[in-house]
């Protein structure tokens, strides 16, 4: 009864347009009261859920990403991508994808990626005669790459949702090859569409110019290397690396690029504070919701149910993937990670799936929901930038869905793709 109440209240309120965090919180309060629990446990879970030691990294990486974004790094990254792949079939579309990969390494967020890269690239693509739907669909699909590139906020969230027992740096390393695979898959789709439609290319600027652009963008690209080397060498922890990223971003934007003054810095920090507050509040509310799921023994029941349905690890992974794809279309990724991890990770572990591999599957599969209706936040932002309706975008997006689904299947059924790099870097 309480489980039904929990989900009915959540979905009714979401449909009524209540913000996700408040819908989760309402459902948690209603279920707690129906179970006769004191409502103070919900408030306690909100505070505890959003202040886990691992989660400290998220607002700090948001701050670092915001500094890099407004400090001129995104323009330099796009410039480098233009030099490298602008001359390929599809020109600006290919630049868009590679820029998303580079920018993902700075922001760690698909939403920030589509805002920064899509905000610049969609208008340029439209100006050069690309169809608006195509420009939007390339941008939002490419933004998925940021989910897997370090410093991915969602991989940090996954680590936090298992109490930090899965190493963040292993997760960061595990996401790299799937992110590259996704980049290549989207670029292949771009090429096929470009050839069919005869889309324009950009002139190759020459290797000297590419080198100049690389040097200009290098301080931004180095962020990922600093994080990796610093954590792996034991110089600082994953959480401390986020503070180092902020210090480094301040150094790059205020001293090296000289693109950030004190007034601008104040704007950046207030923007980062608001974004962090919104995200942390969703995390807190989802933690309260997830605590009630655990209290109601939903994870145990799910393990038993899935064990009775699946005979082998691959059958179980297939069932989980389908479930996550369906759930991803109805839930935002952050709450989904916090709610689904305690339910599905025990199942995956029972079948011998590595928790690092499962983390990559969860974030990638759930992430596809960000570009599908009815609740795809990246889809909404992309269509708003492109000035088209969600329906217009979705009618033309299927080649990108196919590519993303193919990548998901490869990531699910080839665990080495996720586990090889962490083992090499260990």
């Amino acid at each position, binding site marked *: 009864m309480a489980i039904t109440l929990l989900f009915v209240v959540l979905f009714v*309120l*979401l*449909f*009524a*347009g*209540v*913000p*996700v*965090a*408040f*819908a989760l*919180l*309402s459902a948690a*309060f209603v279920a707690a009261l129906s179970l006769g629990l004191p*409502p*103070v446990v*919900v*408030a*306690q879970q*909100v*505070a505890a859920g*959003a*202040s886990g*030691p691992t*989660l*400290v990294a998220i*607002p*700090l990486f948001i*701050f670092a990403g915001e500094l890099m974004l407004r400090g001129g790094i995104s323009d330099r990254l796009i410039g480098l991508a233009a030099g490298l792949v602008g001359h390929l079939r599809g020109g600006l579309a290919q630049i868009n994808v590679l820029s998303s990969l580079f920018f993902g390494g700075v922001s760690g967020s698909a939403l920030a990626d589509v805002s920064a890269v899509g905000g610049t690239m969609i208008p340029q693509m439209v100006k050069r005669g690309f169809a608006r739907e195509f420009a939007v669909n390339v941008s939002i699909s490419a933004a998925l790459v940021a989910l897997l590139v370090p410093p991915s906020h969602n991989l940090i969230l996954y680590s936090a949702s298992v109490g930090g027992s899965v190493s963040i740096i292993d997760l960061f390393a595990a996401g790299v090859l799937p992110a590259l695979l996704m980049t290549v898959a989207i670029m292949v789709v771009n090429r096929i569409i470009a050839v069919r439609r005869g889309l324009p290319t950009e002139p190759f600027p020459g290797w000297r110019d590419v080198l100049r652009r690389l040097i200009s963008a290098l301080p931004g690209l180095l962020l990922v290397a600093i994080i990796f080397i610093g954590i792996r060498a034991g110089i*600082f922890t994953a*959480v*401390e690396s*986020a*503070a*180092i990223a*902020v*210090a480094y971003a301040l150094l790059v934007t205020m001293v090296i690029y000289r693109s950030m003054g004190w007034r601008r810095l*104040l704007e950046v*920090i*207030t923007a*980062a*504070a*608001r*974004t*962090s*507050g*919104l995200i*942390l*509040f*969703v*995390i*807190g509310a989802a933690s309260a919701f997830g605590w009630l799921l655990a209290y109601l023994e939903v994870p145990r029941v799910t393990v038993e149910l899935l064990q009775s349905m699946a005979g082998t690890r691959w059958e179980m992974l297939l069932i989980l993937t389908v479930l996550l794809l369906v759930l991803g279309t109805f839930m*935002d990724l952050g709450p989904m990670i916090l709610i689904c991890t305690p339910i599905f990770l025990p199942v995956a572990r029972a079948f011998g799936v590595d928790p690092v591999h499962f983390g990559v599957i969860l974030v990638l599969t759930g992430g596809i929901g960000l570009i599908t209706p*009815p*609740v795809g*936040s990246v889809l909404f932002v992309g269509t708003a930038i492109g000035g088209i309706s969600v329906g217009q975008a979705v009618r033309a997006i299927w080649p990108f869905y196919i590519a993303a689904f193919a990548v998901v299947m490869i990531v699910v059924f080839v665990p080495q793709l996720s586990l090889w790099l962490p083992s090499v870097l260990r």
Partner: protein
Amino acid sequence: MNAKGAASQAEQGGARPGNVALILAAVSLACLVITQLSQVLGRYLFNETPGWTETVSILLMNSAMMFGAAAGVRAGAHFGFTLGVDHLPATLAIGVRALREALVALLGAALSWLGLYLVLDTWPVKAAGAPLPQGLAYAPLFLGGALIALFALVRGVSILRGRSP
């Protein structure tokens, strides 16, 4: 004073606390950076990792969350899906939006009340690692919850007056 005047005053009243909420969230974030950096610097410069950083980080995280969330309510920036409401007839949509703000205000008030209870209940307990009362960690819940309730009420009033908040 008529209802219109009261509502207008309420809207103006929401502006200053809104800025205060955002400033508090920004200060919390800046302090969080300093706290984490001091952990690294303490370890390498003074050969000693400070013990207070984790407790203070939790307080700052809660502050960034609650004040940032309150600023988000004021700006209408919380993420939600409005497709269902967008297709309703105008009058009904206004009613649903006003009810939505009322619910947010109720939840903010509940968090504030329960946060105050937690502050008072845990105040005598000393926090681990820092000379601070444990109850301080829940103070942002109390204050931020109150601001969420205030801003949601202001937005609700604006919606009922036919203004886009």
